[in-house]
Every structure is written in structure tokens, then in C-alpha cells.
């Protein structure tokens, strides 16, 4: 985040699944982030909670049920899901 960023904050709900949920010991986290915030900021925060290398550099993510990129901007109330490699079927 830039030093000149406004000091307003936004809250997002982060969902964790499968091995990521196990890794972080929970399946959901409420995060308050300084705006503007991106998916990557959420990932940085998660890395601070565990060993940084435990999450891949660019895990698959979704914002409000739609797949998202690491530099996508977040809005207040967004649901951010961090998805391990899929293994359905």
C-alpha cells in the first residue's frame, strides 16, 4: 500500500478451505484493511499468520463467488475466498 493512501478502512470476510483452513486453524477470518486494499493484501496478511511459504505465491482466489486476480481491488463487505488446488470428482 502506498504511504499516501487514505486512512479509511474496509472490512472483508476471508474464507479458507481444505488444507488452507487446516493450515490457519480456521475457515473464516474477518479482516480490516486500510483502503485501497487488494486480494494480494489479504494474502500478505494470511502469510503473516503462518509460515509465508505455506501459501503459494498466487493461489486461486475468488471475490464474491467470481475468480479474482491478486491485484484486484476489494470493497467493503467483500467475501474473499482462498482456494487450494481443486480436487473434486
Amino acid at each position, binding site marked *: 500500500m502506498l504511504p499516501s493512501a487514505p486512512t479509511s478502512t474496509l472490512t472483508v470476510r476471508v*474464507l479458507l*478451505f*481444505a*488444507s*488452507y483452513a*487446516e*493450515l490457519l486453524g480456521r475457515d473464516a477470518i474477518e479482516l480490516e484493511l486500510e483502503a485501497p486494499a487488494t486480494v494480494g493484501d489479504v494474502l500478505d496478511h494470511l502469510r503473516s499468520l*503462518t*509460515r509465508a511459504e*505455506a*501459501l*503459494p505465491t*498466487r*493461489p*486461486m*482466489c*475468488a471475490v464474491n*463467488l*467470481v*475468480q*479474482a*486476480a*491478486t491485484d484486484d481491488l476489494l470493497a467493503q463487505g467483500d467475501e474473499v*475466498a482462498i*482456494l*487450494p*488446488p*481443486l*480436487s*473434486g*470428482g
Partner: protein
Amino acid sequence: MYLTSDPLELATLVGQVQSASRGAIACFLGTVRDHNGGRAVLQLDYSAYEPMAEAECARIQVEAERRWECAVALQHRTGTVRVGEAAVVVAAASAHRDEAFAACRFVIEEIKRRVPIWKREVFVDGTMEWVEGGSPGQMGSGLEGQQNSGTAGKLDGESSDLITGKSDATRA
């Protein structure tokens, strides 16, 4: 509902797609195998990002029904699925068998590639492993899936129940 914790019934899905004008019905069942990588499997535990998985399954159905002249049904189990039980079922009915087979194959491939579902293998010896060896898919948003390492979620090399490899008791 495309996801269910109840046992899957192939006949139910066949009944959903069958009609007097569609004489060819291709189906696929993926069941839990008893062994994987030489280890005896007890069950698979499936979890899902349910609202996104439901949306993705709906998109897959629509895509298949638009691409081929067919009717498609699909269901995927969540929760515990024991050896021999079906984890996923697909049925595709068309007037012609080329279309039915193509649609059925497309749907099972897309389920594996795009639907946010994960499975953990529970072995007879009590150990567990998340299966995360699949290549990440491109989901409905149209964005490219990010490349994930096969060992994402691995905790410092010592938590064997978190180690994710290429093994997969339903990799059929």
C-alpha cells in the same frame, strides 16, 4: 442442488435427462477406490465452497446444453464418501450418441477442472491427506486459474496429513 451429502442415484439423474425425443444417454460415475499409491483407502471427505460450486456446476450444465443438443444432469457428493460409493455422477441425453458422449465427457472434465471442491483421503491406517494435485482450472469469471504448487498447504514438511501430492483415490 448440484451438491449433496446424500448417496448419489444414477437412475435419478438418468430420469432427469431422459425424454422420448432423446434416445442416447451417456453416463459417468466416479466412485471411491479402495487403494491409492499402494495405501488402503477407508473413505474420502469432500468439502466445497458451496455457493460458488453450485454456480459453477450450473454454468457447466448450461455450457454443455448449449454446445451440444442435449440435456445434462450432474451431482457431486460432499462430506464423507466411503469406498465403492459414487462421489460424482453425470448423465447426458441427446438424440445422437456422439453428442451424448461428448457432453458427458465435457461435464466430468469441467467438474474436475472448475468446481471448488476438495477431497481428503482417509486411509485405513488412520492417516489423512488433502488431495491437491489437480491442475487449477479456469472458472466462470473467465480469468485464468493461477498455477498452484502441488504442495500448497504443506506445513514445514512434518504434517503428513497436510501434505498434498498427486495421489488421488478417485483419479479415475
